[in-house]
């Protein structure tokens, strides 16, 4: 576990550095939401997912559907760090003629679904999971969701479906950073008690600190959490995590760091914590 944690910590740091450089260069938004999932992605790609970067469509691979498609910068960064394509691609993020759009899009090696409209991913994940069951394949399906998309009715259609069909190869991860597009989750449309809602729907639920690598490794590493039903891991996170002036700030859902802000942010991050 110790060596795992060291590698994962470093991967998370690299994701954050890439996210900041990418959003700065592209003038792109969604830095905050990309930073909030950096640790979850680092644990998934650094330790949990059974994938082959050289064979992205390997039939028995674990699937990760990133339903919160606006966190594309972080996803593209971790895929490059994991060897799915050259890191030079990241320099082209959102630029004319790039392969990397501002939302997670199929066609990029390692991407399982085109997302950007919220509330689609869990249903797609259910389809993949039941496909595995019916074909007697052993891969797992992870769906990384935002808290905001728990507002979508379609999320709860899929939440009903998973337990009914005993999809214990399905793991939903909610990036619960408590801030959505126009305000805090509490102000816009309160989700609490969120864990109780997923439990009531029949999911096996575990709440973790979404920036604590040990906790993430423990929960995601042993997922599925229970036999006979899907798992939901609620990751309590901080929007903008890792850059002091971005943390908990709604504005960093939209703003792109300027040169000075990038310099400051990288200074904070270059020091391994």
């Amino acid at each position, binding site marked *: 576990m110790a060596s795992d944690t060291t590698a994962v910590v470093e991967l998370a740091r690299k994701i954050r550095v890439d996210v900041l450089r990418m959003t700065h260069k592209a003038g792109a938004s969604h830095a905050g939401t990309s930073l909030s999932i950096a640790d979850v992605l680092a644990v998934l790609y650094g330790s949990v997912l059974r994938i082959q970067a050289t064979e992205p469509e390997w*039939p028995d691979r674990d699937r990760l*559907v990133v339903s919160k498609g606006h966190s594309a910068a972080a996803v593209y960064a971790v895929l490059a760090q994991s060897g799915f394509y050259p890191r030079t691609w990241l320099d082209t993020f*959102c*630029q*004319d*003629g*790039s*392969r*990397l*759009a501002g939302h997670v*899009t*199929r*066609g990029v090696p390692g991407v*399982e*679904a*085109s*997302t*950007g*409209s919220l*509330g*689609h991913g*869990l*249903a*797609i*994940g*259910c*389809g*993949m*999971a*039941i*496909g*595995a069951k*019916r*074909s007697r*394949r052993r891969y797992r399906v992870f769906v990384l969701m935002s808290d905001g998309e728990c507002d979508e*009715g*379609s999320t709860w*259609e*899929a939440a*009903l*479906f998973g337990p009914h069909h005993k999809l214990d190869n399905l793991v939903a991860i909610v990036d619960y950073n408590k801030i959505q597009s126009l305000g805090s989750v509490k102000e816009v449309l309160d989700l609490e008690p969120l864990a109780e809602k997923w439990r009531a729907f029949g999911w096996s639920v575990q709440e973790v600190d979404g920036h604590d690598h040990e906790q993430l490794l423990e929960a995601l590493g042993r997922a599925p959490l229970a036999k006979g039903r899907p798992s939901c891991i609620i990751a309590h996170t901080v929007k903008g995590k890792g850059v002091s002036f971005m943390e908990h700030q709604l504005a960093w859902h939209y703003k792109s760091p300027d040169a000075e802000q990038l310099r400051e942010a990288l200074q904070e991050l270059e020091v391994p914590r």
Partner: protein
Amino acid sequence: MRKAFISALREVAAADDRVFLLVGDLGYTVVEPFAQEFPDRFLNVGVAEQNLAGIAAGLASTGKVVFTYSIGNFPTLRCLEQIRNDICYDRAAVKIVAVGGGMAYGSLGMTHHATEDLAIMRALPGMEVIAPGDPTETSLATRAIAARPGPGYLRLGKAGEPVVHTKPPPFTVGKAITLSRGCDVTFVSTGGMLAPVVQAAEQLRRKGIGVGVISMPTVKPFDSDSIRAVAEQCELIITVEEHNVIGGLGSAVSEVLAAERGMGGGLKRLGIQDRFYDEIGSQEYLRAQAGLTAVQLAETAETCLAERRSPGARVGKPLRKRQGSGTREQA
């Protein structure tokens, strides 16, 4: 038509173990035989059409050919964005089947009338749209779309539609089926309007009018060649569909004719040519990819004008004016 559909689908599923049927808690007395015969490949997802479409997309990504089945607008409009993003963009092998096309659910009221579905499905890049004219075409269409890659929409009537084709006609996705030819007027029909159209044609023939009937089960990809040929041979084309006149069969025919000859002037439609832009870049960059910058617009206009004015150009000719009337059935 729904019986013809399920019976054909059972045959398809028996021969191809990739074929799944997903229903949105509808299909009473229709889908049960499939469910009994192929329990591992049947799934009732409940009253949840967004989930229906999303699950179908996910399942198709694992190598399955997935039919989704519901009634009216439920499997199309209710989950339109899932169809666009999750199915069409990924070219997923999902075949959407709606029972109750047009006003088949008559007295159940407006909520159950599928009268804009052809237009909306047709506007989605990659989506094939088929509205069979009778149970025979339904059976042929079911087999045909199961064998095609990518997404499809099969728009059925309900039950008890008369059989128009007493023997199976040649059926190819994207091809018209010509039932008869005539010089005065040709009906082009899609979906269950075929039977009344055939009856109307008989009435007109008794009056000595030369009438042709074309069944156009495939609204997309569209058989433009057949329409051009009819326009050359026949004075009047009448499109018939149980659907809004905007965006469906009538629009598809208009688009062909307007581009060919138009209102004496011709028409060139610039825009996004039925595709998704997976190229990445700014609006200006993407407009350039689509030929929509000011410079490109001017260039295209000049090119089109030059083509039209070149000797031997077949564009811009007016519809052939017919003299007199009477029966002029063609060979």
